[in-house]
């Protein structure tokens, strides 16, 4: 492990104990979204559009309602018409994506839902809902959607970000633009210019747990909701909006969550479950099948990206021109904005234009996926950087070092970077033995880098000291990959009591203050900072209780390793346990709350090194060695930092080599199963070597930056560059499947 700053002697932070929720997860006790059953609970089933684009002419639910066991059938008409109520456009999109009103916009779009006593009865009733459609022409890709005369998804869509605003509607929701300097001058100064065009396909987050929700509505308008999500406060807000009720009417309890990667920051089933429960007067459970997950949730955008970059013979980048179009799926909101901001953020380039388009098409609405938008842009840019290095005969790490963003660099998207660790990740790769490991025939090595902002946002935490001197740390951030452990480690460090004496809890929406979603790599940073703040308030309180007990001034008391000490040693120390026991006599129970908004986000960088072997007979690419170096700021919980790094890399390898949405000409998804949408399995992969770089984020009490996302940014270009190194073909389309690699090899030898 590379440590760039001396470890300041933490006792708990940076250690690898067993996670607090681990036992329940290895014994099958942990309750995930689909595991809850309530007395009298009904099973629901959703009815989905078989068409990519169609008017809903009529819906007849009478036959379904008459089926055995059926207790409720709902359609779009059972929900408030937010458009008529003058709601915000974004809310209307959420509502109509949850259940269609007049028109379906993708295959899998929800049209109706039923609840019945048994699962089988619900399935039968769902089939009996009679829907008449008038099929409309559809568009599936950015090219089709942006073509002249393309069928429109939304009649009123006028492209934002264009001045003057276009008069006619189109499928382009918005345009983004970042520019600096003078492109012509920049390209004029270059000794090598590379220009390439890239395409990528939509890919799914691929969490193993399908979406699930259980709702139990009361006749007074209140409802309880259990769901597996990346943010139960967010689920509450969206559900309330779609139902047209106050968020305070809905209590949401977070189930354990079986993966999300961004895809569980949005709602699908929750308002349907609540409405069904209201109509039926009984609890209702809705669980998606895997094919529903593929057809109607996630994915992230398919894209077309053009990149032109120039550099001088000593490797200095002089200009970059990037054009990109991102599929948004059925509603505005692709991650092209983040793509535009991240595309060249690793480098200090004096002249650039980055232009992007958010384009709607008849596919499921895209959802966040790990560093949303950045990986596709990085695939394009990092492939071109590799080609520049080859043309100029410069080492791929050296060309990146020559242009790397450092503290004080004006980021391509605006602000100046504070202390960042990009250079350190490049050096960690260069210094690693993998960098000089010998390669065999048909083997190749690729380098790639990535940037992600990381997020801060809002978090709340409460710390209670129990009567025996242990502590309960309550937050509202669902733990998706070990964050309970990082909360407990920071609390142990602050309070000076053993990690094992701390119980971290993820509480429901009525038991803890507001928390934004578990997303943006923010929980250890922001919720962690709230925990630290709350612990410091508790310590303050403990010191004042000791001062009171000793009848001395507060400044005579310090908190050292879990006990109050008199600065002169004039009193025997009082441990946290002693003070907890006396709490009744010193002011009552000991606890503190802290809430905050987004303090000091620390940007994340990752550099990766991939070795592949390509079979020139079949085009099959096998990753034989992989190394990832990432700046964690501070690895509070190194086991789970590595886990995030490795997981991001492997998702990226899947994206690089296998994964893609395939639609037929009618706009129907052809591969909505794990058999046909193939994510990496254990036998596809080597071990994923990790080098944790620690350049502390100066704005966080422990230097945390957030580690969840940036790891998925570099892999596609790392794999592509390695393929190029192995068999001398430049792959510009994802996935780099055997057939495409074979074609490229054949074309090149023709």
């Amino acid at each position, binding site marked *: 492990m590379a440590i760039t700053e001396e470890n300041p002697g933490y006792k708990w932070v940076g250690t690898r104990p067993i*996670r607090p929720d681990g036992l329940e997860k*290895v014994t099958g006790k942990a309750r995930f979204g689909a595991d809850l059953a309530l007395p009298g609970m009904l099973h629901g089933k959703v009815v989905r559009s078989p068409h990519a684009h169609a008017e809903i002419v009529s819906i007849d639910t009478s036959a379904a309602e008459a089926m055995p066991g059926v207790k409720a059938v709902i359609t779009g008409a059972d929900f408030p018409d937010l458009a008529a109520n003058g709601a915000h456009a974004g809310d209307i999109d959420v509502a109509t994506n949850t259940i269609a009103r007049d028109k379906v916009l993708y295959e899998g779009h929800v049209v109706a839902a039923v609840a019945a006593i048994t699962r089988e009865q619900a399935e039968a009733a769902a089939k009996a809902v009679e829907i008449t459609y008038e099929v409309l022409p559809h568009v599936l890709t950015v090219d089709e959607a942006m073509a002249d005369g393309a069928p429109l998804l939304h009649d009123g869509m006028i492209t934002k970000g264009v001045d003057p605003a276009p008069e006619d509607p189109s499928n382009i929701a918005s345009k983004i633009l970042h520019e600096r300097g003078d492109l012509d001058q920049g390209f004029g100064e270059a000794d090598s210019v590379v220009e390439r065009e890239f395409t990528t396909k939509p890919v799914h987050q691929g969490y193993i*747990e399908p979406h699930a929700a259980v709702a139990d509505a009361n006749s007074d308008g209140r409802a309880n909701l259990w769901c597996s999500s990346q943010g139960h406060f967010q689920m509450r807000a969206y559900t309330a909006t779609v139902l047209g009720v106050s968020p305070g009417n809905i209590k949401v309890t977070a189930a354990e969550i079986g993966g999300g990667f961004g895809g569980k920051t949005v709602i699908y089933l929750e308002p349907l479950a609540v409405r069904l429960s209201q109509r039926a007067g009984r609890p209702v459970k809705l669980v998606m099948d895997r094919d529903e997950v593929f057809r109607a949730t996630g994915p992230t955008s398919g894209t077309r990206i053009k990149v032109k970059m120039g550099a001088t013979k000593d490797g200095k980048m002089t200009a970059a021109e990037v054009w990109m179009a991102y599929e948004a799926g059925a509603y505005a909101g692709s991650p092209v904005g983040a793509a535009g901001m991240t595309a060249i953020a690793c480098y200090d380039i004096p002249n650039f234009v980055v232009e992007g388009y958010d384009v709607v098409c008849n596919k499921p609405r895209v959802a966040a996926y790990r560093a949303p938008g950045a990986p596709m842009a990085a695939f394009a840019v990092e492939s071109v950087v590799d080609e520049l290095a080859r043309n100029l005969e410069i080492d791929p790490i050296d060309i990146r070092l020559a242009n790397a963003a450092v503290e004080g660099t004006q980021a391509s998207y605006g602000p100046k970077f504070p202390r960042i660790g990009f250079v350190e990740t490049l050096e960690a790769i260069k210094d690693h033995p993998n960098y000089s490991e010998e390669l065999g025939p048909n083997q190749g090595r690729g380098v790639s880098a990535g940037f992600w902002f990381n997020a801060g946002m809002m978090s709340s935490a409460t710390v209670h000291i129990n009567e025996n001197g242990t502590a309960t740390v309550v937050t509202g951030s669902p733990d998706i990959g070990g964050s309970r452990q990082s909360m407990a480690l920071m609390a142990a460090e602050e309070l000076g009591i053993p990690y094992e004496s701390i119980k971290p809890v993820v509480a429901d929406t009525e038991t803890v203050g507001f928390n934004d979603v578990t997303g943006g790599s923010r929980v250890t940073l922001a919720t962690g900072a709230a925990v630290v703040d709350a612990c410091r308030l508790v310590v303050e309180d403990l010191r004042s209780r000791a001062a009171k007990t000793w009848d001395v001034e507060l400044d005579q008391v310090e908190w050292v390793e879990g006990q109050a000490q008199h600065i002169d040693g004039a009193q025997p120390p009082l441990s946290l346990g002693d003070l907890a026991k006396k709490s009744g006599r010193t002011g009552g129970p000991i606890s503190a709350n802290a809430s905050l908004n987004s303090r000091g986000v620390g940007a994340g960088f990752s550099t990766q090194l991939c070795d592949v072997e390509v079979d020139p007979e079949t085009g099959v690419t096998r990753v034989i060695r992989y190394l990832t170096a990432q700046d964690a700021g501070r690895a509070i919980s190194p086991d789970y930092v590595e886990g995030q790094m490795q997981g991001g890399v492997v*998702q990226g390898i899947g994206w690089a080599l296998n994964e893609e949405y395939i639609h037929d000409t009618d706009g129907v998804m052809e591969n909505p199963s*794990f058999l046909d949408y193939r994510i990496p399995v254990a036998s596809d992969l080597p071990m994923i070597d990790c080098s944790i770089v620690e350049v502390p984020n100066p704005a966080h009490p422990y230097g945390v930056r957030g580690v969840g996302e940036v790891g998925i940014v570099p892999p596609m270009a790392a794999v592509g560059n390695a393929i190029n190194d192995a068999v001398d073909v430049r792959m510009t389309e994802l996935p780099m499947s055997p057939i495409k690699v074979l074609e490229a090899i054949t074309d090149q030898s023709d």
Partner: protein
Amino acid sequence: MSRTHISAVINGDETEFLTEDGTSLLNALRDEVGLTGAKEGCGTGDCGSCSVLIDDRVTCACLVFAPEADGATIVTVEGLATSGELHPLQQCFLEGAALQCGICTPGFLMAAKALLDRNPDPTETEIRYALAGNLCRCTGYDKIIRAVQEAAREIREK
């Protein structure tokens, strides 16, 4: 609808339940028997998160009709720890941080147990192929493979 009466030994206990003919063993275990440790990730045999042992063979419970389990001996993740003591695989998964979200963990534990029961000294490649029917989207498999290697070592040394 008539329901079929099933008797099976589940996690060491004689267990009886009623099921419809078309119900999967996975749904019967989860809904009728109340054992929700096995998870449904796909329902089509492609993810392994529903893996259980049926007469010592690792099987996707989503692919077995519940009535087929009549008379069988079934072990689910809930039966892996014996009298309060974790199986070495469970302990090694905890110590090696071989789970992130944990939804795939029950399936991996059962598939790994089946492997180690028949081959206590597998190579890394053998482990990777034995677990290739189990999907994990969080970990990249690295720590899972290492945890299985470690558990194998501990079992051999016992």
